[in-house]
């Protein structure tokens, strides 16, 4: 779409753009075609080409070029004329000086005979000698412009030659020289040759400019149509994409020009949008499923209480259960929001903090809980592990990992009297990254399930009995991505080791290579 297309149908309340003469003429020549519909802005294919930027640019270039060529040509013509005039002047000057010399030496008789002889030669200059009374003595001029002979010096005049049978008038440049004794001598040259040359130059120039304009417009038309065809293809594709088919991609010709670059970039954008939309759809499906289940439970329980409750105690119990269930829902909701925020990158409130200190703090918080479950929580975080990131989110992520380890870290068949299993929480710095790991001796996660568990709401079969939303690892993974890091789930032989790898300098470093 070009700028003027926008201006043709101004939005309500805005004054219409002042039509330029070009637009007025264009509209008169190529009126809007209502049958074509709004997609093509209501103009015929021909009119559409005239509206392209390429065509308009061609017109502008053409105008500039034509003006320039006209100026150049004008200068050339003018200069040619000037040169010819100069040539004539010099020749006439020389001749007059020589003739005047002859007069000085031989008097009027000698001058007259020389002039007489010269005037008869074909293609000769113009000569005229008059007496003090103005009568012609000799020469080859039949008539002259009025008053030419009465003033000495240069002048342009019309004349007729004596030997000219057609009697047509010509232009000449003449000089009149006053000789002693009242005689006047006129010498001049015909100017027709000069005018003819001038006309030839101008005519040639006009034709070539006309040709350039015709070729230019045709070329502009061709280029515009080519560009327009590609733009139309892009428009067509984008329209199908807008209609909901996100898998469509813009055509790329392979010429690596600006339209290709635009297409490639738009395609990358479409790729990203498609991925986001897919993710979004997945999330909403998940939410629909995993929020509906507890909501249904909530509703059923209330209904059941209404139906079967026998006294205040029953109602109270049902209400308390309802509140517990709603609290659980709210937690799930908060976790989802937090994941969404982390994934959109809007939770990036960054600060510098020591991850080792954070590990110690969390260890202290969770130690009694682990102890109660018969697990030993070991902290391995010697020295500082400085990190730039969102402290709250990293804390939440690490606490999710520790929480998981406490829930699922009991070795199979372990008895409370046996040797307690360990959970090791580590913080260390490695190159540009800080590695935070939580390792347990539980059942671990089968290799095939590892990629799966970080998805939202995924809970493996054996975890169904434990409370939890199935969002814990999704959040950890989202937090890792927000920081430009990643979450790795590894085998701890036996058990699971979850490693949170975060770039020390904040989210701008590239993800660590595998």
């Amino acid at each position, binding site marked *: 779409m070009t700028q003027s297309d926008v201006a043709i149908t101004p939005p309500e309340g805005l004054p219409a753009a002042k039509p330029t003469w070009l637009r007025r003429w264009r509209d008169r020549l190529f009126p809007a075609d209502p049958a074509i519909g709004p997609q093509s802005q209501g103009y015929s294919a021909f009119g559409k080409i005239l509206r392209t930027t390429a065509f308009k640019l061609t017109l502008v270039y053409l105008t500039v070029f034509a003006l320039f060529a006209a100026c150049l040509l004008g200068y050339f013509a003018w200069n040619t004329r000037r040169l010819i005039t100069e040539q004539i002047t010099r020749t006439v000057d020389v001749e007059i000086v020589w003739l005047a010399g002859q007069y000085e030496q031989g008097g009027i008789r000698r001058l007259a005979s020389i002039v007489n002889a010269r005037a008869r030669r074909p293609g000769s200059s113009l000569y005229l000698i008059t007496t003090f009374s103005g009568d012609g003595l000799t020469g080859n001029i039949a008539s002259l412009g009025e008053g030419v002979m009465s003033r000495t010096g240069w002048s342009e005049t019309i004349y007729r030659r004596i030997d000219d049978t057609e009697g047509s008038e010509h232009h000449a440049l003449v000089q009149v020289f006053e000789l002693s004794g009242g005689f006047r001598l006129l010498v001049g040259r015909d100017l027709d040759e000069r005018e003819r040359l001038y006309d030839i130059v101008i005519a040639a120039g006009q034709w070539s400019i006309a040709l350039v304009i015709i070729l230019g417009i045709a070329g502009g038309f061709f280029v515009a149509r080519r560009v327009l065809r590609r733009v139309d293809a892009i428009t067509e594709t984008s329209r199908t994409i807008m209609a909901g088919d996100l898998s469509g991609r813009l055509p790329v010709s392979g010429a690596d020009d600006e339209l290709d670059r635009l297409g490639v970039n738009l395609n990358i954008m479409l790729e990203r949008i498609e991925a986001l939309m897919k993710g979004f759809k997945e999330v909403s499906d998940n939410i629909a499923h995993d929020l509906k289940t507890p909501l249904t439970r909530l509703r059923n329980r209330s209904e059941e209480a209404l139906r079967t409750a026998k006294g205040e105690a029953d109602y109270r119990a049902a209400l*308390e259960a309802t*509140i517990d269930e709603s*609290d659980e829902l709210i937690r799930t909701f908060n976790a989802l929001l*937090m994941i969404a925020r982390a994934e959109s990158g809007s939770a990036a*409130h960054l600060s510098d903090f020591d991850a080792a200190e954070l590990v110690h703090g969390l260890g202290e918080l*969770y130690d*009694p809980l682990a102890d109660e479950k018969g697990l030993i929580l070991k902290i391995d975080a010697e020295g500082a592990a400085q990190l730039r990131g969102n402290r709250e989110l990293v804390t939440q992520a690490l606490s999710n990992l520790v929480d998981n380890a406490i829930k699922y870290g009991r070795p199979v068949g372990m008895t409370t009297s046996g040797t307690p299993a360990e959970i090791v929480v580590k913080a260390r710095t490695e190159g540009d990254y800080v590695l935070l790991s939580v390792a347990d001796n539980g059942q671990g996660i089968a290799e095939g399930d590892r990629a799966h568990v970080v998805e939202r709401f995924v809970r493996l079969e054996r975890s169904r009995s434990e409370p939890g939303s199935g969002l814990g690892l999704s959040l950890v993974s989202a937090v890792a991505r927000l920081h430009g890091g990643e979450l790795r789930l590894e085998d701890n032989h036996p058990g699971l080791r979850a490693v949170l790898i975060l770039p020390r300098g904040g989210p701008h470093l590239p993800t660590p290579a595998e």
Partner: protein
Amino acid sequence: MRILIVEDDRDAADYIARAFREVGHVADHAADGEEGLALAFEREYDVLVVDRMLPKRDGLSLIGELRGKKVETPVLILSALGQVDDRIKGLRAGGDDYLPKPYSFAELLARVEVLARRRGGREDMAYRVGDLELDRLSHRVSRGTEEIMLQPREFRLLEYLMKHAGQVVTRTMLLENVWDYHFDPQTNVIDVHISRLRSKIDKNFAQPLLHTIRGAGYMVRDPK
């Protein structure tokens, strides 16, 4: 206690006001920021409960205006925006506490009461509840004649509970004030810490001092 609720959601405001009145407080309601500001200037309140997003004048601007005019009434900010950054923004604007929606009334009540009490500004060097004594300078805890050995964190937990003796303290409040964490631990880690503390201060004594308040949190209370 006199509480002003500035909240544009009438249902929510009515519910909170009613609940406050039920437990014996006086609660006024303002439906927008301007009205809230006018009331806060006009009357003496112990605590203001202010929603962040309000018509006419938003919550943060209201607090800024109050603080600018040297009105130091404690303010609790309610907000649907529960993220870390939002909380920090709220506290920086002059709020004293921040509670994300949805919240339980027990949580709101506990926080409001703590805020109102804090206004006295007196920081005791030692706390005493029944025969339980805590010395903040020497870090010694004793019950009757018996000295009780506590871990540093257990000491801070008890210190916070005793500072607010007779008031309900919720799990989130403990997590925020004793551990300085602002996140949601999936499991109730606090309960385990409380039960450890309880085993040290209550186990061998006839009168329990540390009580669990159902659906709300904990309270240290003089049995008399």
